[in-house]
């Protein structure tokens, strides 16, 4: 039943989120240092004032009480306050989110197109020089750090050929190089899965049967092969979304873009742990939601999954 499938997946997603939130809570508690002192360090507060603040923040309560309050706050989308800026973490993240999301979406588009362009010919011309060439290119994509390909892109497309701006944001032109570089890095993994899936489906009996019925190669490819091969490829693309957020952190630094990446790097340098935790939780949420969406899309593409006949 589709409803059971949906429900099972949703419960799994909530469970993973709870686990991620708990890990983030424990990590912050394990860290040496006094949050109240960190919050008030800049203002030169006395130890009495710090003790008052500790009580206000509930830091003197037993750990289970603090944990319960933390979970309630999370459900109410309250991520706490930055130790460095004294501002709500949620607000700081919301300000930076659009820039990072724009980069992630543009890069995913690049990666999917490039991944298909590399993976499909490799599978359809398996064992030929086309396969060797495209497979080699996808390993290079996987192995090239974005912090290097980004610099090369700036060197060639901003300095030698002044086509695109090398830093900052604002216009669509600013997005071209970062999205291209990040999409390039991501396309390798997608190409591999596309190739493996298409190769497997090409050997399936129903493809042989479709060919035997005399369907045109184009119809076999689009109706029988791609429909069955792209489901798993889609799931991997969604899993890559987490990699995409990691990659966005580095890419933002290379191209001096503001965004979640810049926020979290600064937070780590200044040990602003609530901000680090907030960005982590948003990343985990994004990951869980995208893999949930991918699973639902797969179920839509492949009725066998809906029926639980995996």
């Amino acid at each position, binding site marked *: 039943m589709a409803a059971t499938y949906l429900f099972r997946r949703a419960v799994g997603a909530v*469970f*993973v*989120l709870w*686990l*991620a939130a*708990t*890990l*983030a809570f424990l*990590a912050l508690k*394990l*860290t040496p240092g006094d949050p109240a002192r960190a919050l008030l360090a800049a203002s030169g507060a006395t130890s009495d004032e710090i003790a008052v603040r500790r009580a206000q923040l509930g830091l003197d309560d037993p750990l289970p009480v603090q944990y319960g309050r933390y979970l309630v706050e999370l459900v109410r989308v309250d991520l706490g306050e930055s130790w460095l800026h004294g501002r709500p973490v949620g607000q700081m993240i919301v300000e930076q989110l659009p820039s990072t999301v724009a980069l992630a979406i543009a890069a995913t588009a690049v990666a999917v197109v490039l991944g298909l362009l590399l993976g499909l010919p490799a599978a359809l011309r*398996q*064992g030929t020089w086309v396969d060797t060439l495209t497979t080699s290119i996808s*390993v*290079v994509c*996987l*192995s*090239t*750090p974005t*912090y*290097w390909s980004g*610099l*090369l892109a*700036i*060197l060639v497309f901003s*300095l030698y050929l002044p086509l695109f701006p090398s830093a900052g944001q604002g216009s669509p032109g600013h997005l071209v190089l970062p999205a291209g570089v990040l999409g390039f890095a991501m396309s390798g993994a997608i190409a591999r899965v596309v190739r*493996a899936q298409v*190769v*497997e489906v090409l*050997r399936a009996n129903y493809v042989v049967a479709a060919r035997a019925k005399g369907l045109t190669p184009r119809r076999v490819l689009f109706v029988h092969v791609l429909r069955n091969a792209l489901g798993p490829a889609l799931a991997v693309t969604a899993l890559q979304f*987490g*990699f*995409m*957020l*990691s*990659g966005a*952190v*580095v890419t933002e*630094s290379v191209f001096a873009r503001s965004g979640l990446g810049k926020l*979290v*790097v600064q*937070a*780590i*340098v200044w*040990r602003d*742990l609530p901000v*680090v*935790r907030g*960005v*982590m939780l948003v*990343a*985990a949420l994004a*990951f*869980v939601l995208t893999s949930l969406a991918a699973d639902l899309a797969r179920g839509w593409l492949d009725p066998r999954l809906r029926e639980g006949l995996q």
Partner: protein
Amino acid sequence: MSSRPAGRRARRLRPIPIAAATWLAVVGVLAVAAPGLAPEGPAAADAARALLPPGASSPLGTDFLGREIWVRLAWGARLTLAAGAAALALAVAVGLPVGLAAGGRGGWVDSVLMRIVDGFLAFPGLLLAMAVMAVLGTGMDSVAIAVGLTAAPAYARVARTIAREVRVQPYIDAARAIGCSPWRIAARHILPNAGPALVSFAGAQLGAILLMMGALNFLGLGAAPGSPEWGMMLADGRGYLRQAPWASVFPGLALTLTVLAANLLGDAWQ
């Protein structure tokens, strides 16, 4: 994946793993021989020789302080390889027992351990490593620990899958039937038979580990300023991209080739 005869495929692929192994050997030799080849050390600067292009007097050029790029790359190979090996060892030391316990025991042990592993895998790798860095503080040791811990959950998952495959073999039933303890079965029967697959995955992980360590160093969270770590050299060269592209292009090339070699070797082994 291929339906070709195994022998033919192996013959076709052979030059690539050889080239990959050769490059890793070159990096390894440079790392070991750096003190002998360039006794002046990676910090030796000569302001009169700043930003020299690659040429006869300076094979890979010099950076903005007049330090030889090739000398720094050789000394940096020591840092990169040592930290990479430490991170990989940590990933295996944490991930392998968890995976073997989960896959070997099955049941509720498996369920609990794998749910925890899934929780860790919900965080994007680099962000998880950065969170560990936030707890530990910055520095090259923290980078190795953070990256090693980040790689451990994936290793646990793979070790579990492999252990489950081995566990259903008749010789495990036989060992259980003659009264071997679970620990003995894990150590003496499952581990040796799962070995090759585990080594292969560790090799494939090395590429990802090196990339992530380079990223943390590039972001300035790792090695001390001025140290010849490759990711950091790349970041240092950024300010002189127009005048001296070699100062960042060569460290990036060295890192990319090393990651590529590790990935190709991992592929070839499978």
